[in-house]
């Protein structure tokens, strides 16, 4: 049987994960796999770009060095942008005019940053002015790092996850950082308004200035940016202007290929587009009206697609994912899952507010099950909440029980002293008070200490503590064979 040619368009996290899943299913025996990446790097972990701003090398966050591809017989085309697929001729066209035949293709083109149309942001040739940055790739992050000078000022446009991460990285480099957020609160997608206030306080404590309820309308500066003009008319002086106001699926190649696109590339439960032999996965894909921008759903998609493509499990289907976000923003722990506001009158809302400690917890309960939660400032209960949320188990009648630390729940009320015979502390103390004041007496009355004997020291101590007439007898009774 001749091997089919599989083209993966894109080399981001989704492509990398898909490769892992394919290799695990020994897909290299079924396919000649070719990967086309616009960037020259092997697949890297975009979530860790903050480390690059902080001074890390690209290699430190690289998931697959080039050798990885070669070692597994995967052809990697670095720096090669696929502009369109000819689905009929089964050929991928690249920007530099090359044509690569394929049998099966997967779009894993990810997202691109949104660049709002701000007055004066671009130079004559359409490129952003010096000092303006987007924050999406290793190159972007390296540029930000190079431009970040001590005593500089940075304005970060966007108070979401990416914006706060960039702000923190710049703040850590000693810059004067201001986050400008059009919504009234930070991270308004994952955190409700009250939680956003807690988050803001924590972000400000970390040394970052926050402007909410205002956007940018333009930038100042001729060759390079010197300031940012806000909707209020105010001008914030800035050496650096980081655009982190959202991402949008990269669908241009899919559109040019005639693959149906709404917000993202439209796929069904098999991650298939309506064009035969063409699939899409990751941030560029739209499944059931939803486009995912976080890692776990994308991994779930990659698993299903690999099952389908290799035939490992032809019945595998992607049914959508529950949203869960958990991160540390500017030093403050945040967890968010499901819905963050009630959507019907029947939804219960539980809020626990600890102003002094800066801790905020909120649950949305629907039909007795956890429909969503927000935690700011303290997230020890996040794993347990994730369990209630993921499993959709009915919550305990006292909803607050779910916040209990597992250790508190599991603390044994009456610890076992003699493990061989399961004699508890309470039983022993009772017997001592009833008059068993030597080890042999106590052993005879309770059987404690007659198994392995390792508890006899502890029992002797109890006798000393609780016996009405503390006893030399007890001490002499502690000999190993006593």
């Amino acid at each position: 049987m001749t091997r089919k040619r599989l083209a993966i368009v894109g080399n981001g996290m989704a492509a990398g994960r898909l490769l892992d899943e394919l290799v695990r299913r020994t897909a290299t025996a079924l396919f000649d796999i070719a990967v086309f990446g616009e960037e020259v790097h092997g697949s890297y972990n975009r979530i860790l770009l903050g480390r690059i701003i902080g001074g890390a090398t690209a290699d430190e966050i690289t998931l697959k060095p080039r050798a990885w591809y070669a070692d597994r017989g995967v052809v990697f085309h670095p720096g090669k942008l696929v502009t369109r697929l000819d689905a009929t001729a089964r050929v991928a066209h690249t920007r530099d005019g090359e044509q690569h035949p394929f049998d099966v293709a997967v779009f894993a083109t990810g997202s691109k940053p949104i660049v709002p149309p701000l007055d004066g942001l671009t130079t004559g040739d359409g490129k952003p002015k010096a000092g303006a940055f987007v924050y999406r790739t290793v190159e972007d992050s390296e540029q930000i790092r190079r431009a970040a000078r001590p005593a500089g000022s940075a304005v970060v446009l966007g108070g979401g996850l990416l914006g706060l991460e960039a702000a923190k990285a710049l703040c850590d480099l000693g810059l004067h950082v201001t986050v400008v957020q059009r919504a009234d609160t930070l991270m308004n997608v994952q955190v409700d308004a009250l939680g956003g206030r807690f988050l803001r306080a924590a972000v400000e404590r970390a040394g970052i200035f926050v402007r909410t309820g205002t956007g940018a309308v333009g930038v100042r500066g001729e060759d390079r940016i010197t300031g940012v003009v806000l909707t209020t008319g105010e001008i914030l002086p800035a050496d650096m202007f980081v655009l982190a106001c959202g991402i949008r699926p990269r669908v241009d190649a899919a559109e040019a290929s005639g693959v149906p696109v709404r917000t993202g590339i439209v796929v069904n439960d098999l991650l298939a587009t309506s064009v035969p032999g063409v699939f899409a996965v990751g941030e560029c894909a739209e499944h059931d009206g939803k486009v995912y921008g976080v890692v776990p759903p994308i991994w779930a998609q990659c698993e299903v697609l690999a099952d389908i493509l290799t035939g490992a499990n032809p019945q595998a289907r992607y049914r959508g994912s529950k949203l869960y976000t958990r991160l540390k923003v500017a030093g403050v722990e945040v967890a968010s899952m499901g819905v963050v506001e009630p959507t019907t009158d029947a939804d219960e809302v539980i809020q626990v507010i600890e102003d002094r400690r800066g801790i905020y917890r909120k649950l949305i309960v629907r039909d007795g099950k956890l429909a969503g939660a927000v935690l700011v400032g303290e997230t020890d209960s996040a794993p347990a909440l994730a369990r209630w949320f993921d499993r959709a188990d009915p919550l305990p009648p006292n909803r607050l029980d779910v916040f209990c630390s597992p250790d508190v729940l599991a603390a044994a009320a009456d610890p076992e002293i003699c493990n061989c015979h399961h004699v508890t502390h309470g039983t022993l103390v009772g017997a001592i008070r009833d008059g068993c004041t030597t080890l042999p007496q106590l052993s005879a009355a309770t059987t404690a200490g007659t198994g392995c004997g390792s508890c006899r020291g502890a029992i002797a101590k109890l006798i000393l503590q609780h016996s009405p007439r503390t006893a030399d007898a007890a001490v002499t009774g502690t000999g190993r064979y006593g």
Partner: protein
Amino acid sequence: MTSLPLVPPEALSVRTHCPYCAYQCGMLIGDGTADAPGTVQGDPHFPVNNGELCIKGWTSTTLLRHPDRLTSPLVRVRGELRPATWDAALDATAEAIRATKERYGPDAVGVFGSGALTNEKAYLLGKFARVAVGTANIDYNGRYCMSSAAAAGNRAFGIDRGLPFPVSDIEKAEVVLLVGSNAADTLPPIMQWFDRQRRAGGRLAVIDPRKTATARAADLFLPVTPGSDLALANGLLYLAVEENLIARKFIESRTTGFDAVRRAVLTYHPAHVERLTGVAEATMRKLVRWLGSARSAMILSGRGPEQQSKGVDTANAFINLALALGLPGKPASGWGTLTGQGNGQGGREHGQKADQLPGYRLIEVDPHREAVAKVWGVDPASLPRKGKSAFELLDALGPEGGIRSLLVMGSNVAVASPDLTRIGCRLAALDHLTVCDAFLNETAAHAHVILPAYQWAEEEGTMTNLEGRVIHRRRVARPPTGVRGDIDILRELADRLGSGDKFAFHSARDVFEELRRATAGGTADYSGITYERIDREDGVCWPCPSEDHPGTPRLFADRFAHPDGKARFFAVEHRPAGDEPDAHYPFYFTTGRYREHYNSGAQTRLVGALTKARPHPLLQIHPAAATRHRVGGGSVVTLESRRGRAEFRAEVTPAIRPDTLFAPFHWGGSEAANQLINPALDPTSLMPEFKLAAVRIVAVGTPVETP
């Protein structure tokens, strides 16, 4: 109340070892005169247990005078087991083996051994299968126990010895991490070392889905989601890299493969790991800081991470962590596994495993075959190749699978295996089953011939404990009339099969002499060990290549056992278990042990003091889950998995995760936890997934009084 006599040690003069677990406590039994001594005392001079015993050890001599003891061979006649003479029984078995071979070929004969057998018997059983029968299909219940850790150790270090250091090193470790080991119940006397360690200021962390007796003793407890240990280990390594705790020099000079592992764990972001494992990031960070900043730290693995369909990878994930922190080879530091079965260690070194030959040699490696064939005086080409692993072997019983005749020595496979309903059908489909054991058990119920064998105290032999220490079990009791030793049984059978000259052993010492020669030059080299040295030195740790070699209590100080002397990192990835909970089977089900019982309970369920303390298995269920299903303490709960059903009385306790149910596996019949268990096998070790199955509660009956 049990009446356990506290007798001064002077009256107990014979030093030997306990019949049960891999800790092999030294014990003093009898005064050397009684036929079946009833008293036992911990041996205060044996440096492993220092005089301590657990309740099983204390009551072990009960079995020496038990009314249920088999004292005559039994042969099935017209569907009924009837007493027979030894000659008749041995003839029946030999004839069955001969006829099966003739009709279906030698591989149609299966042999199933045990981690309870002495080194001598394990060695002899392997030789019997390969030489007298000529079958490839021999395996043993150790496959169900340590095989994942063994495979991981071999991959990473080039050698598999449970612990690379003596247990006494535990007290010198600043931090000990126990992964899925409930040592306080499974190896109770080992706790003395953890107690000392903690008294000296050391810290103990425990990873387990249950707050076990061991976890209650810990300074840090990580209540992990069943089946997610691998993700947790990778997540810990992610944090170790992030916090710059890794031992760069050590990694560079003594290991290979770190780069791939470093990249693999980059995707184990704490947010992701928290959701998978249920362990909070703050807890993970605390643990990794403890491990990474201590002067000495140990990671000790139990069956929890190992008995999974990704058990080997999971063990390797923790070894990766240990290597990245520079622990292996450092004093009082490193990675080890707490072996479970009495001779689990020795059992896997001497060739009763489908892929192995004595001395930890590999049956598929030609020089290894030649070395052993030379000692055995056979043509290397006549040795069979690799056979089926334990579960595969049992699953191949009967006309469909092709194994028509089976010899089981010292294992209760009808309780110890996963998916018991299936295994029961397979056993019933055999043309012939011979069971060698001291008592009737669930497996023997299917037997055509039962050969009553000596118990541990009735013959001598050597065992290898969890430290790789070879120890001497002495004969302290006289066997009842009508019972024979396994060595005699194998000799008689070999005789009848025409290979008597290769099995002309009359004592364990004879066998041991040949075992020494057969292991010489192997990984597990016993050639320098003698009974005299064992007695003189309180055991000798292998490898011990010559009589003037001191033995090797500690491995890896200078080099690892791979040819380049380096340890190997293995990039491993989390993957779902064979049977993950879903809407139909919402609970995780996991299994484990009681302190009072051992393995399938074939021995301990016969001891009054033990069954009185633990007459039945109890199902641990969290109050949140119990309320939802109207389960009270003592309710009879029927569980169902995709394979079978089992019934337990409930113990409602917050010491377990709300999504997980637990029951011990020491019972058969409707109380058999293994009815529910999924035989998904690890691709490398072929270990079944004992530690996790998806189940649902199908019925809740009225509470019966729990004892």
